[in-house]
C-alpha cells in the first residue's frame, strides 16, 4: 500500500486541487466566491463541497464505509441536484479526483511501478461515482415528489377541508350478493 501512504501524505494538496476543479464547474465569479468565503453559513455550497471532499478522500484511503460515504457525499450531491446542471455535470466532480491523483503520483507510480495500486484506488473512485448516482436519483425523486405533493395538497386538501370530498366511511355496510344475469332474473 505504498500508494496509499503517498496519497495520505499529499492529502492537503490533493483535496485542495480536487476542490478547485470541482468548483471550476461553476462560472468563474461564483468559483472565486466559493473558494474565498470560509464562513459555512455565508457559503454553504463551497464549504459543504470542501468538507465533503476532504472526508470522502479519507474514506477512499481507508476501507470504504457506505454509511460514512453517503453522509459526506449526500450533502454535495443534494446541492448539485437542484442547481443548473445536467445529471452528468452534477456528478462529474467525483472523476476529477482521478486526474488529480494521476498528476500528483505520476512520477512515483511509473518509477516504483504502482500501477496495480493505482488501478485499485481508481476502482474505489468508480464505486464512489456509483453511490453519487444513487444519491442523485434519490434527490431528483424527492424533488418530483415535492412537486407532486404540493399540487395534490393544494387542490385535494382544499376540497377535503371544505367538506367537498366524501370519503369512504370506516364502517362499510355488508354487501349482499345479487345475481343480475338473465337466467337468474327469469328464475324469480
Amino acid at each position, binding site marked *: 500500500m505504498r500508494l496509499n501512504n503517498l496519497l495520505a501524505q499529499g492529502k492537503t494538496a490533493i483535496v485542495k486541487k480536487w476542490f478547485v476543479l470541482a468548483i471550476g464547474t461553476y462560472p468563474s465569479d461564483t468559483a472565486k466566491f466559493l473558494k474565498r468565503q470560509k464562513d459555512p*453559513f455565508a457559503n454553504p455550497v463551497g464549504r459543504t463541497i470542501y468538507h465533503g471532499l476532504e472526508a470522502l478522500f479519507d474514506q477512499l484511503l481507508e476501507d470504504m464505509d457506505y454509511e460514512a460515504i453517503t453522509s459526506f457525499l449526500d450533502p454535495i450531491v443534494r446541492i448539485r441536484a437542484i442547481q443548473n446542471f*445536467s445529471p452528468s455535470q452534477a456528478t462529474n466532480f467525483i472523476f476529477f479526483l482521478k486526474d488529480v491523483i494521476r498528476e500528483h503520483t505520476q512520477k512515483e507510480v511509473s518509477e516504483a511501478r504502482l500501477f496495480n495500486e493505482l488501478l485499485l484506488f481508481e476502482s474505489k473512485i468508480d464505486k464512489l461515482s456509483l453511490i453519487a448516482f444513487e444519491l442523485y436519483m434519490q434527490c431528483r425523486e424527492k*424533488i418530483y415528489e415535492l412537486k407532486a405533493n404540493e399540487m395534490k395538497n393544494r387542490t385535494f386538501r382544499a376540497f377535503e377541508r371544505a367538506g367537498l370530498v366524501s370519503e369512504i366511511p370506516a364502517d362499510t355496510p355488508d354487501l349482499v350478493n345479487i345475481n343480475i344475469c338473465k337466467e337468474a332474473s327469469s328464475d324469480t
Partner: protein
Amino acid sequence: MSDVPKPDELLSNIDYRPSRTGWMDTPVDIQKGIYSYAANPKSVEYVGLPYPRQWNPIEEDWQLPENWKEIISKGFRERLDRFRSVKVFMDICVRCGACADKCHFFIGSGDPKNMPVLRAELLRSVYRNDFTTAGKIIGSIGKNFKKIIGARELDLQVLKEWWYYLFQCSECRRCSVFCPYGIDTAEITIMGRELLNLIGLNIDWIATPVANCYRTGNHLGIQPHAYKDMMDFFADDIEEITGVKVEPSFNRKGAEILFVTPSGDIFADPGTYTCVGYMMLFHYLQEKYGFDITWSTYASEGGNFGFFTSHEMMKRLNAKMYAEAKRLGVKWIIGGECGHMWRVIHQYMDTMNGPADFLEEPVSPITGTKFENAKSTKMVHIAEFTADLIKHNKLELDTSRNDHLKVTYHDSCNTSRGMGLLEEPRYVIKNVCNNFYEMPANTIREQTFCCGSGSGLNAGENMELRMQGGLPRANAVKYVHEKHGVNMLSCVCAIDRAALSASMEYWVPGVEVTGVHEMVGNALILPGEQKRMTDLRSEPLPGMEEDDAE
C-alpha cells in the same frame, strides 16, 4: 437540473467548464425548474392589466405587443420621474460587490446573474443606454463602445433576461443591509416587475392570486361560507382536544377589534394549526377579560400579491382592510402572522389607503398598553399583542406541553427587515416553550435568510429554484438540528410555513414548521379544559404516548 442532454450533445459537451464569456455576452438560458409558468390570461384580464394572452416562457415567441419597446421605455421614464429612489439607485451603485454574495439565490444557485448587483445591472445597462447623456453620446459613436460604460440596448434577449432573473428575486432586501449606499435592490425588482406587467409578462403564481383576491378577498378564491366552514371545522378540532367549544364571530358590526390574517392560515397546513392557536387565544381572552374581536370573511386575506405586481395593484388589494374596519365600525385592527402583508401595512398602507382617521390608536383592552408604533396605521401585529399579554401575566400557560419541541426561529424577511419585529416573537416563544435555540448570528434577525419562495415564487413548477434559494436558511437549520436536536422551525409568516415545509423535507428531514401561535395554543390553559392528551396536531403530548396507545 437542466434537461437531460441527448447522447450527441453529451459527447460534444464533455468539457464541463462553464462559459468564460462576460455577463453581457452570456445569453439567457431559461431552464425548467427555475422559471414559473406564465400568467393565466383570464387572471390578467380580470383585474384589467394589459395584454392578457397565452404565452410560454420557453417558446421563442412571447406574443409581445408590437410596440413593446416603446411601452417599456415610456414606463421606465415615468418610474424614474415618479420614484426618486429608483433614479438614485440607478445612478449611485459603484459596483463595490458588497451585496454580491449576500443573496440566497446567488449562494444557492451559483448563477452570477443572481448577484444583486448584477441583477440590478440588467436594468441599469438599459438605463445607461436610454436615459443618461453618456449613454446617448457614446452610443452614437458606435454600438461596440457602449460596453465601456456598461450600457446596452433593450432587445428581446435582454427582456427575457429581465423576466427570468426578476422572478428569481424574492425582494427580501438582505442585500440592501450590506450596501454602503443603502441601495434597495428589492425596489429595483419591484420596478422591473411593474415594467414587465405593462406588457403582460407576469407569472401565474402571482397573477391568479391577485385576481382571486380582487374577487373574493383572498388568494385562494375562498368564498365566505367556505371560510366559515373551515373555521367551524377547527372549532370541532379544538373541542376534541380541549373539551372547550370556541365560537369565533364573523363580520360582526360593533366589535372592538377586527382580525385580519393570511388565508394560508385557514387553508394551508401547517398554517391551519396557527389559526387554531389564534382561535384559542381569542376564546381565552373573551372568557377571562371580555375581549371583543371579530373575523371577516371579506377582508379574508392579509397577504397582498398585488405588491409583486404594481403599486396600484397593491393599493387596490390592501384597501379592503380599512374598508372592512370602517364597515364594521371597529376601533382598531390586529393582524395575523404574515410576512409581506406586514411590509405593505408597515411601509405603504398608511399613505396608500390612509389616513384611517375613523379608527382609534390601538390600546390593549386587557393590559392598557398603547401600541405607539401602530399609532398611525392602527394595526398591531399579533406577536406584539401576545408578547404584551405575557409580559403582564395575562395568560396561564403550561409550557411543558411544548416539551416535545426543540424550537428555533426563522425571522421572516418582511417582519424583520421590513418592520423591525425581532424581539416580540422570540419573547412569546421563550415563554411558551422550554427548548429554544437560535441559529447562527449571520443568518437571523436583520441578516435573516429568505425562505427562498417569497414575493410570489412559491409555485410548484419552480421547485429547483425554491430549493436553491432555500439552501442558506436550511443550512443554518441543519446546524441547530445536528447540534441541539432542533425539530421545529417556527416563524411568523404564512409563505414561510408553506415554503419551509418543502425546504425542510428536502434539506433537513426531521424538522417540521410551525407558527408561533400554534405553540401558544399548545401551552395556553383554557378555562374549563379537559386534560390534554395531544397537541394541536393531534399528536400525543410528552408522557401521553402510552395513554394514547390504549
